Every structure is written in C-alpha cells, then in structure tokens.
C-alpha cells in the first residue's frame, strides 16, 4: 500500500474533509447491549492494511447479514472522508429523529454498475442510500447524485 493512497492522520483517526463539527473519533463502541448478533456497529478497525491493497479493496465485499456479494476485489478505490450515515439498526422511533453515526472509511466506485449486487434507494436530497440488493439491509453506503460516485462503508461490509 502506498502511503499517498490513504490520508490517515496520527492517532488512528481519519482526516476530516467534511464540514462536521468535532465528531467523536471512530473508537470502539459499546458491546452489543442487546446480546443479539446484530453487528450494529461498525467500530472502524484501527488498521486498514488488511483491507486495502494498492489503493483498492483487497477483498470482495459482501453483505454482513446475508451471502450477497456487493463487489469483487480490486474494483473500488479506498477513500477517507468523515460522513454520517443513518445507523443500520434504529433503536428509537424515526419520529424521535434518525440515529446516525460518523464513518470515515469507504470504498468508492465511479459508477453504480460496477457493483455486482446493490440496492439503490430513492433520492434523499442530493444523495441516494445503498443497501444490500438481496436482504435490503442498509444503508451500507451512499451515492452522490451530482457525480454518480458510490461509497461503501468499510465498517458495514464483510470482506472475503
């Protein structure tokens, strides 16, 4: 992996490029309180050297919840950008507001057809959310409608 491919800053945190205000660093979240197997989060690993090779996804990316293959290996570019996504498991009613979490590590493709399998939500403002094409769990990422780029959260996929 080339140093220039990733913009990690010392301390394991990621460089913040968005306009978010002092979001907490992606640290370990609390243990699964419900005891369920729901991998709701999404603690981002400190090391990405096991995931990124030559700036691309080293492994195929799959849904965490079902066998669906999202994309083959070596297709997407590693991208660091802090951005909040709605949590995959919302514990409160939506009327109480959407629970989001900041994520910073993504795999980016320039075109949605580069995925093997993906679901694309209806538009929410200037983005659409990405979900598993088979079980529809998500969001696993988002797509920017202005430039069609699609971002998959490293923390929300299973690498094989």
């Amino acid at each position, binding site marked *: 992996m080339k140093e220039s491919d990733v913009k990690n800053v010392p301390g394991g945190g990621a460089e913040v490029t968005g306009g978010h205000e002092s979001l907490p660093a992606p640290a370990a979240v609390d243990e699964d309180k419900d005891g369920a197997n729901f991998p709701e989060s999404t603690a981002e690993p400190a090391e990405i050297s096991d995931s990124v090779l030559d700036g691309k996804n080293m492994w195929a990316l799959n849904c965490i919840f079902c066998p669906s293959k999202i994309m083959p290996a070596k297709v997407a570019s590693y991208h660091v950008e802090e951005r909040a996504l709605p949590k*995959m498991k*919302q514990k409160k009613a939506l009327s109480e507001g959407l629970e989001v979490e900041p994520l910073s590590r993504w795999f980016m493709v320039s075109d949605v057809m580069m995925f*093997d399998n*993906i*679901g694309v*939500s209806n538009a929410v403002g200037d983005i659409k959310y990405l*979900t598993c094409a*088979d079980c*529809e*769990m998500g969001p696993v990422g988002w797509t920017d409608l202005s430039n069609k780029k699609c971002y998959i959260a490293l923390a929300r996929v299973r690498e094989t």
Partner: protein
Amino acid sequence: MSDDILTTLKILIIGQSGVGKSSLLLRFTDDIFDPDNQAATIGVDFKVKTIDIDGNLVKLAVWDTAGQERFRTLTPSYYRGAQGAILVYDVSSRASFERLDPWLQELNTYATKSNIVKMLVGNKIDKDRTVTREEGLQFARRHSMLFIEASAKSKEGVMCAFEELVQKIIQTPGLWESDHRTGFSLQEHSETEAGASWCNC
C-alpha cells in the same frame, strides 16, 4: 470478475399496486430487514444484480415502479432503453388481471426497443386464485409474452422468471450489446433527460 460480464441489461417491473412487484425485485433471501430501517422507509429505486445464465455473467439493472404507478403515468425515461419488461398481476386479484391491457399499451408506447422481451408473471400462487393458469397463458400468447406463475413468498418461480427473461433477451439479436461501456446513469430515471443513456439503439 467484472471483466467477465457478458452484458448489462435494463429490466422493468410493471403492474398494479399490490400485486407484489417489489417482492419480485429479486428478493430471494429471508425477509430480515429492519422495518425502521431508513433505506427501507425511503424505498428502493432500483437494484443491480449479477446473475449467471448458462455460465455467462449478466448484470441487470432492475427497476421497480416503486409506487409511482399510483400516478398512473410513468415518465418515458423509465421505459427508455429497457431490454426486458416483467408485467405482474396477482392471481388472487381479478382486477389486477383485467388491468393488464393499459399497462401493456403504455409499455408498447414508450419502449424504445421494438423487440423488447416481455414476460407476464402471475404472482401470489400461494393464495386463493381467481385467475386460472390457462387465462394467464392465453393472455401471454396473445401478446407474444413469456409466461410464468410465481410466488415471491416461497421464492417459487421468481428466479426462474428472471433467468428465462434474460435467456430470451440474450437470444434476441440486436437487443443487447457486449459490455464495454460504463455510461449508466443514476439520473436516468429522474427528470434529467440529457446525457449518457443506456445505449442508443
């Protein structure tokens, strides 16, 4: 693996509300989505699915009308460039069967590919039927459509439907192109008409 993709096809799913179009949207796994899930609440616009047809990988962009049928007229851009269309009715709903004609007319009006492959799907065969298999078959024959009965609930027939449709498209000369382009546009379904579209046949 992406290099091995034979072609990319645009497939539409059309039909009345409530006939189970969404569940036909290539939903093969158990339903485990979180009802409070934001993306599910927002609704799925389309899906990209890669399927294996006789050893060839074919990438599908499958579009569901996603509730827009309530407004009856889908935008022509929804139909543009589609190589295949799945027209769905509910075998337990006579009304959904009787309203197939206007859907077919709309499809024939807006489809930009004259040899688009059409498939009729009688859905929900796990329920009490009011439309016989023979009636569905007759309608399909009359309109030169493929025909299959399915139950998304039991997954029965759903995979078959897609495989059969894609096989027929592949067998239709001039309907598809070997995959070299990446010009697919997310915007295509919206009002934005300009720019790269599927393919310009």
